[in-house]
């Protein structure tokens, strides 16, 4: 497990496109923090989802998942290691990019603290979703369409759906935190069940 986490962290650090993306997206999130802490919370959530999706789905995209499963033929610990890795990286990413929001926030940094509480759950949700879908482009486009059409236009961000409940939790709503935790755990359960699927060769 520790070896898997170390290997995943090392992989992230040695793929230039990964950390360039982190830096660029982090700069965008931090910029929004200057304007409004709530906007920063939204971009941090998207960032955490993206980190988790890229970490997990890229293994399937580049077929390196086979190497992971050769090292760890019991697949659940592999997924767990990826979840832990993305939780840690997303938390650090959020903590750093939120400094602007923390300084700007008028209510004693409450949004910053609430977001740091809920962001690991977003990482779990993202990693689990990626383990199910296995394709990062599908997930990112799907995320955008889901967010805008389903949760935004249809649900008016009021239905207890994943991103709406994430944003409620980032505002300090305990019910939103619970709902989002349920979403993440259900997704993780589905990911665990579907993890046994064959890895497809070219």
């Amino acid at each position: 497990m520790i070896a898997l986490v170390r290997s995943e962290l090392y992989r992230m650090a040695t793929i230039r496109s990964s950390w360039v993306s982190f830096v660029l997206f982090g700069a965008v999130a931090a910029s929004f923090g200057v304007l409004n802490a709530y906007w920063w919370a939204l971009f941090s959530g998207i960032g955490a989802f993206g980190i988790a999706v890229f970490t997990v789905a890229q293994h399937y995209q580049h077929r390196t998942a086979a190497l992971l499963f050769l090292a760890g033929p019991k697949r659940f610990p592999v997924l767990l290691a990826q979840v832990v890795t993305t939780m840690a990286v997303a938390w650090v990413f959020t903590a750093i990019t939120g400094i602007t929001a923390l300084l700007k926030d008028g209510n004693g940094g409450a949004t910053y603290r609430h977001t740091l509480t809920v962001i690991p759950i977003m990482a779990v949700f993202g990693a689990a979703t990626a383990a199910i879908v296995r394709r990062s482009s599908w997930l990112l486009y799907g995320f955008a369409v889901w967010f805008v059409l389903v949760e935004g236009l249809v649900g008016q961000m009021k239905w207890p759906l994943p991103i709406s409940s994430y944003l409620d939790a980032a505002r300090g709503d305990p019910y939103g935190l619970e709902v989002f935790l349920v979403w993440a755990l259900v997704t993780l359960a589905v990911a665990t069940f579907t993890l046994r699927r064959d890895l497809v060769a070219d």
Partner: protein
Amino acid sequence: MIETIDLTKAYRKVRAVDGLSFSARPGRVTGFLGLNGSGKTTTLRMLLGLTRPTSGEALINGRPYAALAQPLRQVGAVLEQGISHPGQSGRAHLIGQAMLAGTGRARVDVLLERVGLADDGHRRTGDYSLGMRQRLAVATALLGEPPVLILDEPANGLDPEGIAWLRHLLRDHAHAGGTVLISSHLLAELAQLIDDVVIIANGQIRRTVPLADLYGGAGRRLRVRGRDPERLWRAFEAAGGKVTTDDQVLEVDGLSAEDAGEVAFAAGVPVYELTVDTPNLEQIFLDLATAR
């Protein structure tokens, strides 16, 4: 020891692998041969726990891959023409894999040297040629110093020098007591390397024999050219040979070269050419692999 017992993989109504039973023994290189789509890769992926069998067993040292303790210390695998993230350098890829295998970074440098990538270790693997990616895949497989090697078409993309290098590496591994199972769709590519051959077609075993027996089973034919072909023909037939001709030479089955020479001498016919026609191994393979 690698072993499959009645191994089957079905995708809906299609049986990609159908009741496969064979073994690859320590100290020998076993060639796993079949045309494209014959079920080789599916079989190897079932051995490695990447694809679940519909029925049957795929065992390495008597256990399914998933039950092996420290699997990278027991089995090294080369899959799909070298898999790595294209944005990661070859060296970084190996270091990450070394963390998984529980080996030190020092081994990474040793292996980069051994596979001929010491000067290219810093380059992104996306910039590697196919041959370089194959060498990197072999280095990845060797990280944990495993006694069992399973290689899926590892010679793809290698130049003749690379194939010779791979041949020596795998022979040395087998001489040291290791087990090697190597797949290919070209028997000629492996003929100088393998000890045993498993031929698969349409997901089923066609032949499992030592390579020498594959040659022997085909029988040997003599090609004879002399001053008087008709007298030679009659003499060979009288001696028990079966004779045909391609209008250039006589083709004789059922006699050894020594017998044919004596028969020609006794018949008083000068012989200009007497050769043993070695069976075309590739043709034998194709006959077996395409047989229904």
